[in-house]
């Protein structure tokens, strides 16, 4: 069997790795127009800021692919012929397949702004975007970044590291307020401003103006304000990268490629995973398109089983995510809606320095814990997840809260203050019974003990 995978992002690569793990016989070809090897898209910013080199973004050494017999093709797929089961490349070549996996990722959103196709206007999604930005950087005296999401702040931080004055335009009245609860959202806004980035709340882009030479020279906002800039970063979200699939007759597309519970598209033997997939029946509380690293990884693994005739339904598990807003780390586990919901109670503790917080969400009715949101403090994924999965009572969680703490040694622990806050709000007399430490966490997680230590080298994946 020959499986062709379009896209060498985390979704495609995970699928390929698991195919090889589960079967020795399957022939695997992975195609991408973007780069020779898989790289970590999430780390593009670190190359621009000089933290890492391009090579450092590659999680596997080049020989890994040969060793695991995963054929790599650097081609652009122009057309997919699902009847003949053939891919047609931009350079005229073709490739026959038995099963096809679409893992084509996302493209940046553009909302038809005048001037959006000028030179020095770009998104920040691909390796080419990065190269392009590097190339034009000497021309940039000031920059505007449009969009208050995760990529927007990264792009602003990138430009800021090169000492370019940046204005970050955010439509809402605080940063990423459609995903972060208000307190955390305001915390990030404060932090951005304190770094000297010109954060413009309640500001929307109206038009990008030509500098006379076909490149961006300024923008105007919807209120008519003009900001001089030689670069405009468009980071108002992404959408599935599916344009080249529009003429595939039987392939049902929504915003993304529509897939069933087994990640199958409407065409037999064609599957879609990662950012480009739109799940027809998302689990309760989950979105149909979740353009994040982790879901791409889970989908990749799931589809490998299904491809090999061992069907496994896609289950994204309990939601988790993380990010870093300049210097503030952010982790979320479970249900943390930006604007709350009926019946959901929240316990929010914030450090006086205004850069650390713990939020615990639980059901008002029966006290079941449903979500954790952390700013500037690290919590253990597995512990939080197990509490949520079990529906543990918030008071039980609070008394054990230290078990979740994942901050480095010697860091101050704030769990007692969180419990104290709860006591003050409810009149209870809870005590923190568990401090930070691995032993308690492992026992709680009930890991198998006394197994031999792995002798495998990381290369032998």
């Amino acid at each position, binding site marked *: 069997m020959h499986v062709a995978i379009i896209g060498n992002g985390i979704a495609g690569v995970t699928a390929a790795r698991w195919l090889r793990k589960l079967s020795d016989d399957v022939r695997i070809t992975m195609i991408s127009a973007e780069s020779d090897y898989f790289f970590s898209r999430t780390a593009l910013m670190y190359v621009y800021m000089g*933290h890492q080199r391009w090579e*450092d973004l590659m*999680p596997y050494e080049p020989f890994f692919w040969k060793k695991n017999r995963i054929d790599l093709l650097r081609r652009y797929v122009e057309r997919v012929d699902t009847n003949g089961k053939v891919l047609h490349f931009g350079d005229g070549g073709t490739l026959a397949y038995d099963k096809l996996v679409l893992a084509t990722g996302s493209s940046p959103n553009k909302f038809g702004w005048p001037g959006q196709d000028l030179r020095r206007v770009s998104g920040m999604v691909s390796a080419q975007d990065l190269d392009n930005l590097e190339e034009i950087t000497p021309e940039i005296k000031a920059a505007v970044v449009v969009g208050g999401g995760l990529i927007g702040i990264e792009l602003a931080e990138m430009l800021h590291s*090169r000492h370019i004055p940046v204005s970050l335009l955010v439509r809402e009245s605080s940063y990423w307020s459609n995903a972060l609860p208000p307190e955390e959202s305001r915390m990030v806004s404060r932090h951005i401003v304190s770094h000297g980035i010109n954060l413009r709340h309640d500001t929307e882009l109206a038009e990008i103006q030509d500098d006379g030479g076909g490149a961006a020279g300024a923008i105007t906002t919807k209120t008519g304000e003009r900001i001089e800039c030689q670069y405009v970063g468009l980071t108002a979200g992404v959408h599935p990268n599916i344009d080249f699939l529009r003429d595939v007759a039987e392939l049902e597309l929504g915003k993304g490629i529509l897939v069933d519970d087994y990640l199958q598209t409407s065409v037999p033997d064609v599957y879609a995973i990662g950012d480009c997939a739109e799940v027809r029946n998302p689990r309760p509380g989950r979105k149909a398109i979740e353009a994040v*690293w982790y879901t791409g990884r889970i989908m990749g693994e799931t589809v490998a*089983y299904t491809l090999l005739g061992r069907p496994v339904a896609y*289950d994204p598990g309990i939601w988790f995510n993380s990010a870093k807003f300049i210097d503030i780390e952010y982790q979320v586990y479970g249900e943390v809606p930006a604007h709350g919901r009926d019946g959901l109670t929240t316990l929010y503790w914030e450090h006086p320095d205004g850069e650390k917080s713990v939020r615990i969400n639980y059901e008002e009715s029966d006290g079941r814990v449903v979500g954790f949101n952390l700013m500037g403090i690290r919590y253990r994924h597995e512990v939080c997840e197990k509490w949520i999965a079990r529906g543990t009572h918030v008071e039980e969680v609070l008394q054990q809260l230290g078990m979740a703490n994942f901050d*480095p040694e010697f860091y101050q622990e704030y769990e007692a203050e969180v419990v104290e806050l709860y006591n003050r709000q409810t009149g209870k007399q809870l005590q923190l019974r568990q401090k930070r430490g691995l032993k308690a966490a492992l026992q709680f997680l009930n*890991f198998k003990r006394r197994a031999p230590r792995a002798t495998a080298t990381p290369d032998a*994946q």
Partner: protein
Amino acid sequence: MPSKTTQKSLLQYIGLGLFVLALLTFTAMLGLERYQLSEEDLIDTVAPDPRSVQDGDGEAASTVSAGSSGGTSVQADDAPAQEPVTDVDPKARLIHEIQGDAFREAGRERGLFGTTFGSSFSFSARVGEVFEAAKVRVNERVDRLQEENALPEGVSEWDIRLSDPIYFKQNLAALTAAAERGPVKNNPVLFLGLTIGLGLLGGLLYILPKFRGHAGIKNDHVYHAQLTKGLNLGWRSFFLGVTTVGIIGYGIRYMASDWFWPAVTAATALAIIGLVMFVQHSWRNAPARAADPAGLSAYLGIFAGTYLIGFYVLLYWAPEHVAPWITMVDPLKQGLFGGVASQWFLYGVLYTLIILVMGVRMIAKYRHNKYQIVRTLSVMFFQTAFAFIIPEILGALNKPQQDLKNIWPLDYDFFFGWQLDQFQSAGALGTFMLVWGIFLVIVGVPLMVHLVGKRWYCSWVCGCGGLAETMGDPWRQLSDKSLRAWKFERWIIHGVLVAAILMTALTLYSYFTGAESLLGFQTWKVQKWYGFLIGAGFAGVVGTGFYPLMGNRVWCRFGCPLAAYLGLVQRFQSRFRITTNGGQCISCGNCSTYCEMGIDVRAYAQMGQDIVRASCVGCGVCAAVCPRGVLRLENSSEDAGYRTVPERVIHVSEEEGVVMKF
């Protein structure tokens, strides 16, 4: 204007300027002095009159450098040279007569006296000629004595004959010191201020402003800066090759043209290259993801590396050329501890000050991270107190200058005969030092590593680690993360451990049996070669000189036998591991990039696998730089076994769908 550098304040530019000035002065001062030797100084140094009062040279027996870069017994102790002088010793008198006369005559003939030499090079060249001429004369005299059968009872011809010039090195340094004239000799304190003083001031002016602004990860422009971006594999290999060949080549000379051990070393090196490249397929698996920026870049890094390499070469093997540096720190030594400064005192002073100043930098850089702060304060303390001040005080009290935190086999001469004798002759204190040293090896190391991992030593206590974590921090990203580098690492470091054990076994065999050799291997030669190759060449020249070329832990990762020992315990019998936070890793690579030990942390983290690696020194930087809070250094008696299994966080299973393994 966009730029690829970090922003610096005026004060920082001034600091930088002062530092550069200090470095220039420090370098240039070596050329400022003139050398002029008197007859008396020559004779007093090479063949002193046993009847004249001998000043006990407090430094003579010191082989423990304050820097503790693997200990540094680079001295002529092991050469079959003169015995210590006693008043009525006929041997000493004969040496004084015969050698003294020969040197005097040769010196006059070659115009050594009264001539002013413009540099230490012309001076030592002339002394070399004088030595050769004197050697001929001595040999003639000894031949005659032998013909006449006039050698006194108990004196052999070899006590008097001059042997290979390499054994004259120690004298050469002393002669240069005696002959030194000029501004530094006249104003040592002034030069101390202009170099070390100014350097300190400049460094602090540059570093202290770093405490301002936001705390957080400060890696902007690391790979843009000429000093820190490293060079590609080809150029790295070039520097490494030249240095290795140079060291082994000079080693033949160092061993007085006995090429046996240099040849064994070269053969071993080739064997390891063959093993890794061909038996273990690294050749086939090229290209590797090496620490490999494009082309020959990082000119400042190359300059810094070359400077450091040069510094170590001079310090270890040509101290006659650094007399002005030693002269300059002499008042410091006299003022603080009494006695005469040697090159090891100079080294100790520099080493300690660099750890202190760069330690402040480390704290400024990681001021949001308490683990880093505590750890850095710890290495600063252990260097200052244990490696520098306490041994100096012990020396001043005429006690063995033992660095109590230095552990065999890093402290490779701990079991050398003279060292054991010294412990035994130093009363209760000596006995304590001996017992303490053995206790550390047998109980201290395994127990502590079991409890908290090898980090307790490597990144909290050790002097080599201390330098790597402070001065070396700007270069930690240059370690090679390829699988190939890991293969080299395992062969080489365990090879050094085996070498250290065999060398020490031979030493102890000789010590207890009195035999000078075993199976034809002469003990003193094995010791001498180990000290040269590992103690000086690997730990010093390559270990530190290659900071800007191959990262700050070259020695700790590839060479240190103690690290190998600690690592074995850590790998198989320790509570320490780095835990991975569930599925949060985004494979960004920051952890691997900034792991100074070249561990591909990401390879584990992205599979949710806990990390138990022999080489991890527990610096905690991977956990600090991870933007997603994925890593934590932890100790627990709960077994690490299951959690180190690859693909532990299996999200999918056919039966259960997505699961975390609770």
